[in-house]
């Protein structure tokens, strides 16, 4: 049977022509979102206040929480980290089916992007938790899920350095990539369904007013573009390094 030639992702294909434009779009969208978050969307109400005041045409009766603004970047960045993990799992499956090293490279880069965005999620989540509940860390469902995701992605990258032989390294990494993709949603679900007895979680997200929804949407789109552009940039760099290695090898013998 003729080996169906799968189209291998390569630099210079359509994603690369689009990448610079996407990067600009990403930057624009995130800045617009940033401004919207602070200027357009009214801050969320916190604890009730002894009276009520007329500010800017509406009656405010509880503390206005600026810290909640972090949420506008926290949630989109977290979503992008899940998307990156999904992409990585997609390439892992493709590698196991076709055994093409190129898909393994793509999976590695997608995992790196996922790690980057998880770290960003942890940073923003950390700052929000610090102010919101006054503690540096609480074993609250969302934070634990991201911690587990971060550890798995780190384990994936450490595993890659522990194996030298390219074929075995790629196969084992692909398996771990798929296991991670299966494991994280379960972790997401388990930590939510079982109430941790320490202290009930005040879920602030609750109902999102239209402007908040729009703002989050804009930033989400922006972050997706940034993620995609970074992926292509990193992909071009890794491909260049691989070509350099190949030429070196040719020169040797």
């Amino acid at each position, binding site marked *: 049977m003729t080996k169906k030639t799968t189209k291998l992702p390569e630099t210079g294909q359509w994603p690369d022509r689009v990448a610079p434009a996407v990067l600009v779009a990403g930057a624009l969208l995130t800045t617009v979102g940033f401004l919207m978050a602070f200027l357009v969307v009214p801050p969320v109400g916190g604890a009730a206040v002894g009276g009520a005041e007329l500010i800017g045409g509406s009656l405010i009766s509880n503390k206005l929480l600026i810290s909640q603004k972090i949420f506008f970047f926290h949630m989109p960045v977290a979503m992008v980290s899940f998307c990156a993990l999904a992409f990585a799992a997609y390439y892992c499956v493709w590698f196991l089916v076709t055994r093409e090293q190129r898909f393994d490279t793509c999976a590695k880069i997608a995992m790196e992007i996922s790690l980057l965005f998880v770290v960003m999620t942890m940073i923003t989540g950390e700052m929000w938790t610090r102010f919101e509940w006054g503690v540096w860390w609480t074993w609250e469902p969302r934070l634990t899920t991201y911690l587990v995701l971060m550890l798995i992605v780190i384990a994936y990258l450490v595993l890659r350095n522990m194996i030298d032989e390219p074929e075995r390294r790629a196969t084992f990494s692909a398996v771990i990539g798929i296991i991670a993709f299966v494991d994280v949603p379960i972790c997401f679900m388990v930590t939510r369904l079982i109430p941790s*007895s320490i202290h009930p979680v005040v879920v602030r997200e609750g109902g999102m007013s239209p402007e908040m929804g729009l703002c989050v949407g804009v930033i989400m789109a922006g972050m997706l573009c940034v993620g995609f552009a970074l992926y292509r940039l990193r992909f071009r760099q890794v491909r260049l390094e691989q070509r350099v290695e190949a030429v070196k090898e040719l020169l040797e013998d």
Partner: protein
Amino acid sequence: MTRSQKAPAARPAAQAPAPAARPQRPSGFAQYKTLLGKDLRQEFRTKEMLVSMGIYAVLVIVVYGVALSFARPGGEFLEVSGGLLWALVVFTSLLGLGRSFAAEKENGCIEGLLLAPLDRGVVFLAKATSNLVFLLVVEVIAVPLFWFFFSSFAHPGASAPLMVAPLVVGSVGIAGVGTLLSTITANTRGKDVMLALLFVPVIFPLLYACVSATTAALVGGDALADVFGMSLALAAGYDVIMILASWVLYDFVVS
């Protein structure tokens, strides 16, 4: 040496018909029993893994003893004991899983298995079952020992025997996923650290569900009613999904 006369190989239409004397490939279940029998016989003869896991569990209990010697006995201990017990199970199983392929790798026996007409899922199931058996044997010793040493702190509630359910469900999950991960890390550098680094995050949801179920069983009362059933169901769900995934992916990992 008389070799029974092989029927002349007929024109191979689709597949050369196996001559009568040539062995018929046994059913998957028969191969599973053979593999499991070998693992159990080998382990119960040397008892290498069982003894090391048992001693390790006792050592962990000793460390707990020191850690808790300054805590006030009483109700809080019960809530903590579920987690302590599971920490003991996780690290003891890590030790056991790390050594589960020692015998195979030591003499190139893995290649002996790969040479046989045997699909890799059967190897996975047999190895997972043997790991499960060893883990359960150690738990049967370690858990009562744990309560023996900490009886001065607190006595488990009336519903404590329910604790067996999460222990079994958890051990099944640990043995299943653990076998896949230990196969991966069996021939990587720094294999013990690598196994732990992969194992703990992947097993986290199962651990989370099992600890909550065990604690509910130990504390008893109202906590038991709503949390126990839900946690156990989630743990069982985790087992099914992850063992299925491990079973499917095992073929790539072992060849």
